[in-house]
Every structure is written in C-alpha cells, then in structure tokens.
C-alpha cells in the first residue's frame, strides 16, 4: 500500500559543499557518549575513569527512568569523565583499544520473540535510546505501546544524508530491524520515502511496513511532518521514531548478537576540502575526520546539519543522534551598510535581495545573524515553510505566555524543534523559534507527568 503525499510548503537551502558519494574508512581512537544529547535524562554513572568496557557495556543509566541504559559504542578504556558547570556530566570519553570486543547477547530471529523479549534485549544492550517518541522527542518508554513507529528514509535537510547510499546492500539487516520494530507496536511501522529520490530496493522491498511517499522541499523529510500527515498525534498518543541507520544497528544486533555501532557519517559544508562519507562508529571524535580536510579560517563545526545541529569544538565528538558533520564559516564580521546593498550573493527567501536572479546558485552561508532580534512584525513568513495545519506564531506566543491549554489546542504535541528550524531560518525578526518550542515541550512534559 502506498500513498503519495504532496507537500508544497518548505524551502531547500542551497548550500555549497555537498558530500560526494564516496566512503572513506576512518580509524578514530577516541569516542564519547554525551548525556546532554538525551533530552530529560539525568545520568547516573556505572563506570569510572580507567575502567575497561566492551561495546555494549552499560556506561550510565537514567536516574528517573532506571530501565533506560546507555552503553559504550566501542571496546576500550574510559579515559575521562568530563563535567561542566554545576558538575553537569558532559562527556564520557572512551579510548578504543582496537580489539572490537562486544558484550554478547542472544542471537535470534525477532519474528520468534515477544515484544517483551525484544524490548529487554534492546534495553540491556543499550541500543534502546535510539528509539525516541513524539511528543517531546525524548527516549521512548519501554513500557509504552506506541500507536505507530515512523522511519523517514530520506533526509531533506541541507546536505542531508543519502540513505539509499547508506543502506545499499544491507537489505537483510534492514528487514531484520524492521521485523523487530514491528513487534514493538500494536499499530503500523511506517517507512516514508520520496518517490523521486528514494530508489533503493532496500526501502521499496521492505516487508510488513506501510510505505508512504512524500514529495516536496524540506522539511518533508522530517518525521514530525510525516506523522502529521499520516497519523497525527492527538493528546495522549505516542509515536516512536528512529533513524534508518539505527534500524540497521538493531538488525545487526539480532543477527549477530552484538551492539555494533558502526555507521556512515557525512562531512559537508562550504569549508570542507573534500566533502564525502566516512565509515566509523557512533560518537566518534571529529578530529581525525577534520584533519587536513578543512580550509583555513575561522569555522563553526556542527554535529548534525546546519539547521538543527549542535555546535562542537574542533576536538569534539559527534552526537548520539547525529550522522552528519557540517563545517561552515563563522560570520563574526561587520558589514558596511549590509542591509542596504543589492546583495547579489546573499541567500534569502524573500526577493528583497537581488540574489533572486540566480536561482540555481549555491551559497556559502556563514553564521552571521544578519540583523538584530525584534518582536514579531511580519506575518505569514513561517506558514510558508511549515507544511502543517498549525498556526506557528500563535503557538509560539502561547508557549511564551505559558498557556498550557492553548498550547495543547494549537498542536504542541505534533511539533518538534526541528520542524520549526526553517521558521527560525527565515524569520526577519530573528526569533529563536526552536528554543521556544523546546521550552514549550519541556513545560508540557513537566505538566503532564
């Protein structure tokens, strides 16, 4: 069964430095787990500096949901437990020993296992955190029965990953992962593809899932937008979602009985010399990847894409949910009368700059804010890039006013930060919409618990 959902609203930001489809093996010695990647998690450590761990050894768990465990992606030694202000646990750094030792788990076909058995295995191996839930985008609750599980097999964000390329030749693992997921919900597993972009047979031949087709610009590849159009979240509903690479990890886990966190990541951006894909392991240090592959100058290194990623240092680590490293120029310069110039090389959705004449041009966009923060003035801007039946500005204002009922009525359960990333990008008033949405979701979660 296949539905085509055509979305018109949105925006594809044309950036320079898209990753070439070539893969390089990268041997990184250092890896890290960053508890700050997991929203609402209060980490309780199970290891200390100097401990030896295997891939799949539990490193910490959540104080408030003790059944959620987090494990090491590699085998090696815990070298440093880095804390930030107020002793906030920032990074657990692991030096790989290069032996690839794994904690071993039961090998079995998920088709023959019950929901409880699958949950237990994924939980104990520390793979579970890759499953997240909407609303709130927090790690799924193992005891819940989600009404559906969503997987978006295409990434429309700037320099988004090509999942066709990533899953190529891994059809069996992918199907096995889907089989396991199928058991976790009493509803459907939705696999969302783009009829033009998605060509891989791995996706099209997937069994026991509902394949939905989406066309349109970013954010049509966002799972939140897809849920909104296929099976919208009402109050009390729970939907789980995960990345296709995590489906592969789950597939491998049930095939080989080990937590193999190998994955492909991309490095892209206008400041990268050779933008391409790398084969590595989750949470890798970005240092060896950046080595001799970025241009000179001051850059911003982002774990994730340029719209939703997190800023990291040059010696930092990729986030748990990030399979992308973006490098763009910092924009900390003054521009003389910049607002008045014709602006031929400036990217804008509005046609107030002369750059509207070059439709196919790709841009190197830096981190300059291009103006000061203002109150909401223009209307209708956000609506053009948010393909949802939601009034974005009204919702943001409800959040700012902390009006719980109104937030609920205006659809807070259906949105996530990443869905508002484009709103934030186009905003003339430079409002930090993603931050506001996160605050709204956190407030809602607190109220509901």
């Amino acid at each position: 069964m296949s539905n085509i959902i055509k979305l018109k609203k949105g925006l594809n930001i044309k950036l320079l430095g898209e990753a070439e489809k070539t893969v390089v093996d990268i041997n990184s010695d250092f890896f890290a787990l960053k508890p700050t990647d997991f929203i609402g998690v209060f980490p309780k450590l199970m290891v200390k500096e100097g401990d030896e761990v295997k891939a799949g050894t539990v490193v910490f768990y959540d104080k408030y949901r003790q059944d959620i465990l987090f494990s090491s992606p590699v085998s090696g030694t815990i070298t440093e437990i880095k804390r930030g202000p107020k002793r906030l646990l920032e990074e657990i750094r692991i030096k790989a020993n290069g032996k690839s030792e794994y904690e071993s788990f039961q090998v079995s076909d998920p088709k023959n296992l019950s929901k409880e058995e699958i949950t237990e295995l994924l939980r104990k191996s520390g793979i579970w955190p890759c499953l997240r839930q909407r609303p709130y985008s927090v790690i799924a609750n193992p005891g819940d029965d989600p009404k559906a599980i969503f997987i978006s097999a295409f990434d429309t964000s700037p320099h988004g990953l090509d999942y066709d390329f990533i899953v190529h030749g891994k059809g069996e693992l992918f199907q096995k992962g889907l089989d396991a997921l199928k058991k976790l919900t009493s509803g459907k597993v939705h696999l969302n593809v783009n009829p033009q972009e998605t060509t891989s047979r791995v996706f099209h031949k997937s069994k026991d899932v509902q394949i939905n087709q989406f066309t349109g610009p970013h954010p049509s590849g966002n799972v939140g937008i897809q849920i909104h159009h296929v099976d919208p979240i009402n109050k009390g509903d729970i939907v789980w979602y995960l990345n296709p690479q995590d489906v592969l990890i789950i597939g491998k886990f049930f095939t080989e009985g080990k937590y193999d966190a190998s994955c492909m990541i991309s490095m892209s951006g206008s400041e990268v010399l050779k933008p391409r894909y790398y084969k590595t392991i989750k949470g890798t240090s970005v240092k060896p990847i950046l080595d001799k592959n970025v241009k000179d100058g001051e850059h911003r290194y982002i774990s994730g894409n340029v719209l939703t990623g997190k800023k990291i240092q040059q010696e930092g680590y990729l986030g748990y949910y990030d399979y992308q490293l973006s490098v763009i120029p910092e924009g900390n310069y003054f521009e003389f009368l910049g607002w008045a110039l014709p602006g031929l090389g400036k990217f804008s959705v509005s046609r107030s700059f002369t750059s509207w004449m070059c439709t196919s041009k790709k841009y190197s966009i830096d981190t300059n804010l291009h103006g000061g923060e203002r109150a909401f003035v223009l209307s209708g801007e956000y609506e053009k890039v948010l393909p949802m039946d939601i009034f974005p500005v009204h919702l943001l204002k409800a959040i700012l006013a902390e009006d719980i009922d109104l937030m609920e009525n205006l659809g807070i359960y259906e949105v996530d930060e990443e869905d508002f990333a484009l709103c934030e990008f186009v905003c003339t008033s430079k409002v930090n919409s993603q931050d506001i949405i996160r605050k709204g979701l956190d407030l809602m979660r607190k109220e509901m618990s």
Partner: protein
Amino acid sequence: MKALRKILDNIKPHVEKGGKFSKFRSTFDAFETFLFVPDHVTAKGCHIRDSNDMKRTMSVVVLAVVPAMLFGMWNVGYQHFLSIGQEAGLWENFFYGFLKILPIIIVSYVAGLGVEFIFAQIRGHEVNEGFLVSGILIPLIVPPDIPLWMVAVATIFAVIIGKEVFGGTGMNILNPALLTRAFLFFSYPTDMSGDKVWIADKADAFSGATPLGDALIGDLDKLPSVSDMFFGFIPGSVGETSTLAILIGAAILLFTGVGSFRIMISVFAGGWLTGLLMNVLAVNSYMEMDAYYHLLLGGFAFGAVFMATDPVTAAQTKRGKIIYGFLIGVVTILIRVFNPGYPEGMMLAILLLNIFSPLIDHYVVQGNIRRRLKRIKVKA
C-alpha cells in the same frame, strides 16, 4: 569604511554597560547597526540565517513608497500653478512640491524617531525600524499646506499612544501613520478637510474640491476624466492621487514578498463589489457612480497598498487577511456613500478593521483548534 569602523570601535566601550555614556547605548546601537550589519553570530538553534532583516524589509517598503512620493511632489506643484493659472514646467512643478513636502517629511521623521529613540533608551532595547515606514507615509496622507507643528504633535501622539504604550513596533493595535492622520482629522478639521486645503497656496477663486468631495454632493459631472484620476492629476493628499504610482509600489511589495497580496486584492475586491451593490440599490447619483471610480478616487489605492498591509495591525492568518481586507473595502465605500460628514472612508475603515483584526484571527485560529478536537472525536 575602515576609518568609520575604527571611530565606532573607539566609542563603543564608553556606551557599553558601565561606561561613561551607557545611557546612550540604544542610540549608539541604532547608528552603529545602521552603518554596519553587526558581527553577531547565531548562538541558539539554526546556525545559518536568512540575510533578510527588519532594516531590509522596511527599506523595501520605503522604496515602494518612493514613486507615489515623487509623483505627489510634482502634483503639488502642478495643482498650485494650475490654480493660479500659471504655466509651469516639469521641474518647476516638482521643485515647488519638493520644497513643500520635504519639511513635512523631516518633521515627521524627527518627531517620530525622536520618540522611538527615547523609548528604546528607557527600555534598554534596540531602536525599532518600524517608524522608517510610518515616517514616510505620514507626509503622503496629509494635505500639502498642513502646518508643520500639527504634523509634529500628531506624530508624537500617534507614536506614543498608538505604539509605545503597547510595547513598540510589533505590539501596536493601530496603524501609527493612520492614527496620526486621524488625530489631525479630528483635532484640526479645518486644516484637514473641506475644499480649501488640498491645493498648496490655492488662488481663492479656483475650486479646490477633491473629486471625492464633488461626488459626495452629487456633482458627478464635475469629476475629472478616468485617466486623470488614474494617473493622479487631481487635488488630494500628497501621495494618494496617482493610482499608477501606487500600483508600481504595490508591484515592488508583492514581488519582494513584503506586502500581502491577499490583503491588497481583497480590499480592492471588497470596495468594487460594494460599489456594484450601491449601483444596484442606487437612489442618488453618487450611488449610481461606476463602481471602479471608487477604487481610483481618494485614498483607496494608497490605503489598500500601504496602510491595510501593515503586517502588525492587519490580520495575521491567511483566511483572516482575506476577511480583513474585504471588510476594509466594504466599510470604506459604506462610509463614503452614506456618511455626509466626511467624503473619505478609507482611514476610518482601516482603523476600525485594525481593531477587529485580532478578533478575526481569533475565529480563524478557533477553526484550527476545532479541527484538531474533531480528529480526536472521530477516532474515539
């Protein structure tokens, strides 16, 4: 440029918090950001942002107003020399009008921006760009002979009571430029209405009635030709006469995506359809006037393009914009035709709908909420 940057960098420490002149931080900031787009980088959320900002948006609107302003200047001169029966060339007309209008523009900007700066200073905010547009609109919606002190008083009133008390640009309920005009209109009616004020230094013998005034008393045969009304060779407020110049501005606003086409089109549609309805129900000669005349006369086009589209005071939802615009058109014609007191209804119609736009939006948003609730019920 570098020298200028150096000067600014030298002053900066003094106006920053703890500096000697920290009281003038907002003022300095306004000038600095005017000269240089600041070096601020993204700290939260998106790492990249659109190049568009409030300054750019507002300057696009100012640019869109320019054709109407230039034509208005010329027309002020043209009407003056016509009334005294003197022949004058293009430049003579223009310079006469230029010298009449420039002081009004300066007064409007100085008064309005002065208030903006003071309030930004008190609040410790950055100075908002909103008044850049209001400041150029105000001179275009007043008669050319308006005493300057009235402009100053009215502008200060409108900016304080219309905008700053609500929290500044983005929070206001009424369009500040129109509020200025409304203040003038009700406080100094002799300088704002009647047959005497619309031509600068008019010869007494010459009839200075606007076509709208003629129409109101039923003198339809005195109306100028359609082309005169379209191109704007008629007496009236400075910027409102030329529908053509205004349409050029509309094209700029629509092309850049700054103005809402929904509002513009629905205002015209509302006005025209109500005009047609008047034709059907006609009991006097004004009601029999061709419906499209209404769109060419008075401030209709100017209001539809530059006033009704103010994003802050207009309705903000798509459907709301259409209702809002349509009602402006309707109410304008109703006031024009049925109110013997004032010939023009555009200003009052827009101000009235400014007040109603949150209500219109409220019902549109309620519709969205009901759809969401219905979804649950269907499922249950």
